[in-house]
């Protein structure tokens, strides 16, 4: 019975008016949750956590750099799952979500690259190095931009989405390269300091702000994804009755 209800609920999300309502209701709550988590995280990151004994205060950059990097990769994984669903079941709302994830993922990748570069200047003595982690992250940004460009190049949005979904799946190969780059090659970028299954080399007093910021970026991604998907749906269905009806109230 529960499985049946989940299945029915999932299929109902394929209905544009239902999906639109879901986006409208859920997105503000996600933004509110993100704001609360970010407020806790930033307060702890900037005022409560003591400076690092080697890097001093510059280590505080990691509280925006690491969550952005993780979200850039997690966002891509979410897009890949959506792309598979879109290609197999041809659900239009899923196609839209897969496409709308790209600019948000690109934004988080940009944050990661910019903050990493800013941290690298005082710590490594250089803004940029062509090492495996940095380069593979730059490739991720180009993949995101490629998906956006490809989708925008098609007049037929559904066709564009299907082609871009294939590109998403091709680009998926870059995610393990990013993750394992610090193990496979000798890199200027440090190895993993945080482990979910083993012991982290990061001091436990420095962890809470990171956890808050990671949750905040997850919620931000979700909220922005729903907001952008809602707009794209309205734009695609602008001549349809349900959009005209909603416009009477509030689109």
């Amino acid at each position, binding site marked *: 019975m529960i499985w049946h209800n989940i299945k029915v609920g999932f299929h109902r999300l394929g209905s544009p008016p239902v999906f639109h309502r879901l986006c409208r209701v859920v997105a503000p709550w996600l*933004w509110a949750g993100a704001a609360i988590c*970010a407020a806790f995280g*930033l307060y702890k990151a*900037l*005022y*409560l*956590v*003591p*400076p690092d004994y080697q890097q*001093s*205060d*510059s280590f*505080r*950059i990691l509280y*925006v*750099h690491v969550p*952005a990097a993780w979200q850039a990769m997690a966002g891509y994984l979410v897009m890949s799952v959506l792309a598979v669903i879109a290609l197999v079941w041809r659900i239009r709302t899923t196609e839209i979500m897969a496409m709308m994830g790209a600019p*948000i993922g690109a*934004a988080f990748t*940009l*944050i990661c690259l*910019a*903050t990493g570069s*800013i*941290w690298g*200047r*005082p710590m490594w003595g250089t803004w940029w190095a062509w090492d495996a982690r940095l380069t593979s992250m730059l490739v991720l940004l180009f993949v995101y931009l490629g998906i956006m460009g490809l989708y925008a190049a098609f007049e037929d949005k559904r066709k564009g989405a299907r082609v871009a979904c294939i590109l998403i799946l091709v680009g998926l190969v870059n995610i393990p390269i990013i993750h394992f780059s610090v193990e496979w090659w000798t890199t200027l970028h440090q190895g993993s300091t945080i482990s979910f299954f083993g012991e982290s080399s990061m001091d436990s007093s420095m962890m809470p702000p990171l956890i808050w910021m990671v949750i905040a970026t997850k919620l*931000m991604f979700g909220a*922005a994804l729903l*907001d*952008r998907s*809602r*707009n794209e749906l*309205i*734009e695609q269905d*602008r001549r349809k009755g349900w*959009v*005209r009806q909603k*416009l009477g109230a509030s*689109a």
Partner: protein
Amino acid sequence: MIPEFEYAPYVWTSYGIFAIIVAWQVIQPLLKRRRLKAELREEQALEEGDYSHDAQT
């Protein structure tokens, strides 16, 4: 415990970039929705024969 002066420009610039890009993620969909609504209202008015919206633009 705010960042020391030596590293303060690096830290605050990083947090500033984060804030600006996240703020854009909030603002961009709102601006687009407002534009879409205006376009759709204009289209609807034109279809109904009301050309006052067209004259304003």
